[in-house]
């Protein structure tokens, strides 16, 4: 099972994006577990396929260097897609990075 984790500063803005991504995944029949956490909770991460950061917490990217080194993609969500809460497009980006 693909596990997508989104991080933003308080998990507030991303929760809606997560919902839209879930809707999109359902529509596509794509099996995935999509979650959002706040920055403060993002320290104890394991067992995920991809980590996606909200644009406002892009500065966290360097913190997840070890994750990236272990082959898990860490990416910052595209601003426009994020801004327009375009779940379908963000999901597509995730899939592309996971080469699905």
């Amino acid at each position, binding site marked *: 099972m693909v596990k997508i984790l989104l991080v933003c*500063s308080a998990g507030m*803005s991303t929760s809606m994006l997560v919902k839209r991504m879930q809707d999109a995944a359902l529509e596509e029949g794509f099996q995935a577990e999509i979650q959002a956490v706040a920055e*403060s909770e993002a320290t104890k991460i394991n067992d995920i396929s991809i980590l996606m950061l909200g*644009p406002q*917490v892009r500065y966290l990217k360097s913190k997840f260097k070890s994750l990236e080194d272990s082959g898990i993609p860490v990416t*910052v969500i595209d*601003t426009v897609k*994020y801004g*327009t*809460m375009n779940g379908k497009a963000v999901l597509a980006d995730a899939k592309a990075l996971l080469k699905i």
Partner: protein
Amino acid sequence: MNSVIQLWDRINHDQHELHQGFTAMQIAERYNLSRSVVSRYLNQLVIEGKLLKGDGRPVVFFSAIMGSEVAGSDSKSTELITDTAHPITDEFNLIGAKGSLKKAVKQAKAAVLYPPHGLHTLIHGETGVGKSHFAREMYQFAIHSGRIKKDAPFVLLNCADYADNPQLLMSEIFGVKKGAYTGADRDREGLLQKANQGFLFLDEIHRLPPQGQEMLFTFMDYGHFRPLGGNTDITGVEVQIIAATTENPESVLLDTFKRRIPMMIELPSLAQRTLEERKQMIMMFLKQESLRINKPITMSRNAFISLLLYECRSNIGQMRTDIQQACAKAFLHYVSNDEAHIKVRSVDLSSAAKAGYNHYKNQRAIVDALLPSTEETLYSDEVSLTQVLDQSTPEDFYTSIAEKYHVLKSQGLDEEAVRQIVGSDIEKQFETYLRSMKQRVIEHSITKVVGEDFLTLTEKLMTDASQRLGCSYPPALRSAFTLHMASAIERIQNRQPIYNPRLNQIRIEHTQAFLVAMDLAREMEIALGIVLPIDEIGYITMFLANTDELNKEVRRSTLPVIVMMHGKSTATSMAEVVNELIGDPIAVPFDMPLSMPVEAMYQSISNYFLTHEIKEALMMVDMGSLSNFGEMLYEDHGFHVRTLVQTSTPLLLEVVRKAASGHGADEIVASISKQFQTPRSTVRSENSQNKLMIITACFTGEGTAERMKRIIEKRIAKPEQIVVKSVDLADRSAYLATIEHMRSEYQVVAIASTINIPVDDIPVFSALDLLSEEGLSRLEAIVEKAMLLSEISKSIKETVDIPSHELVGASNRFIDAIEARLGKDMQADARIGFLLHMVFYIDNRLKGIAPRVFDGYRDFLLKNGGAYDKLEDLFESIEHQFYITIPTDERALLLKVILSNLE
């Protein structure tokens, strides 16, 4: 008068000590007199011709009688020298002799006075820096200092004249024996011999062939030379040679000269001279022209500034030519228009010279200090016209223009044709001077649209107007005026009518400006050969009257403040209190008993507006349907009404206070919104925020506004997402009302207008902005951002509880304010992320969802307390706006995200 004679006697008595010249101060000290008295007497003596006056500061006076008797060993002459063009002085009669030519003059004096016969000298400098003139000055100095006799020869030869025939050139200099070469049919004396006991000036010495150079050096070193074809040396010739060259200082040739000629004098280019000196030169050339045509010449300030600042490739020579040419053109106007005097205007200048005005803005301070006169006409010299000067242009030049003009006129040609023919003649006359001068038009974006001549004209007109009306016009307004006039003239030429519905009002409101506008129009009519209708003059008046200085005078009589409240007497009692406190019955109450139908209320309000001829007002209402009245009044009558809701006594008091001190409705609403945190003064529909609009405006709504509209439409990438609308701003109130009306349908993201009339916080672009890449990309950025924000609010519309555009708008303003406070911007994409964060944060608070806890906030605040303090009230304003509370630890959390994402 007696005292003047006494002083003259004393000066004469002491002439041996005073022969070097003296200042008023020295005389005052010497004879223990007051300096101002002495100064007056000395000037009196100058008028009587007993004294001569130097050019420098402090002014040095010389006795006209002492003359060349002084200091000389050879000279026995005691004759009075009457050449007034060269006053007897041991100073150089050169502009800048004590300024940027100081070193050169010092060297020149040394070269002349060096015993026994002076030093041969090489003058080096660019074309037109005044090398020949300088050489002549050296010669004059040599006479006055007594080194050479008064009648000593000054012989000039320009080697370039013989560039094709080096044999001939050498024979000219050194002389020739019969049969030396074909055509040398008799013995001829060279110029060296003719210049014996005097000066030989060899211009463009680099054109002298190497053989000739060698002969010249031999003469310099040993004092003898041999004529061409001769077999004996000629000795005993004493000549001071002055050579001049424009040769590149790096060249081998110049190196040779430098090595062999003992004195080398470098003359600075015009660009290296001071502006003060350049000013003096312009004055001097004007004076020379004035003497030549026996009439005073004046020059407009703008033309003077252009001459002062333009890039003059061929230096002083070119500047003189340009001034002569401009004077010639001005003379033509003078003859053909029967003008009272000859006046050089910017239009008379060559395009290269005109371009000088473009540098004014960068050097305004120094130029204004140089030309302190605010008078339009700067130079006006009523010199006595007996002196004859420098003959570098034919004396009858102007006369020939005048004659030609009259001849052509009498042949029945029309004015325009005559002018063209005669005008082209002037050009031809100057062709020789101008051939080496490439005219470079400095590109100025506005000239691309209207042309340089036209810009010069309108700039001048605006300057005239500002002086006559005693107010200043900012560059943006000047450009707007230029563009407006270009459109107007286009209309006239296309025979399209110009109609100004406000004409009569304008005449009454701005009598002064109207009179000036009439004159400007006449000047334009003359310059452009068109007829401006009176309606257009009305528009010109509007431009002229568009300054704060003038607007204050005609400031609409106090803005009416209409108070409308539900209840039998709520409005009346509130208005009473406030009016009494302010001491002026400004608040007009309308009570609306609950029994009263809304239509009846609207009827009485609209009657009140009509009977009192109110076109702009501020409406203070408590709630409900009353808040729509403003919009209805616009729909029905076009009145500009701003509405404030939830009126309270303190709010009304503040509004009335501002109205009493002359503020307009928009200003009041803007300042009130800040102070009282009123969320919105006008309720805008949610729909409106998703349609974007840019408004372009000019007085007619047709000329410049249309042009700007086209420019914007061409630039904006997605024209289907944004409407560009051109409107007229002939009537300020109507204009504001139109914008207000548009805003109920659209989100107005920017205004491009010929006049800067601020509307809330909508960015206003000038016409000039739209002509620059910088301005256009700024506009583009604003549009793109607005589009993105509008997309964002569309996409979250369903999930938030209150209208999404309000959340997005408020968050956006919140971030704008933060960035302004911190003086730093957030990274563009992080900004969008944070904006969404704010939106959902506020929404969650409204939904009552518990926020997260930020445990480390105390430590964070300890570190970042400064930033927190700066932004505290911005958090509070969000709290007020949405009726939520943001606890300290959450503020800290928000602040942390902000600070982490600053650029």
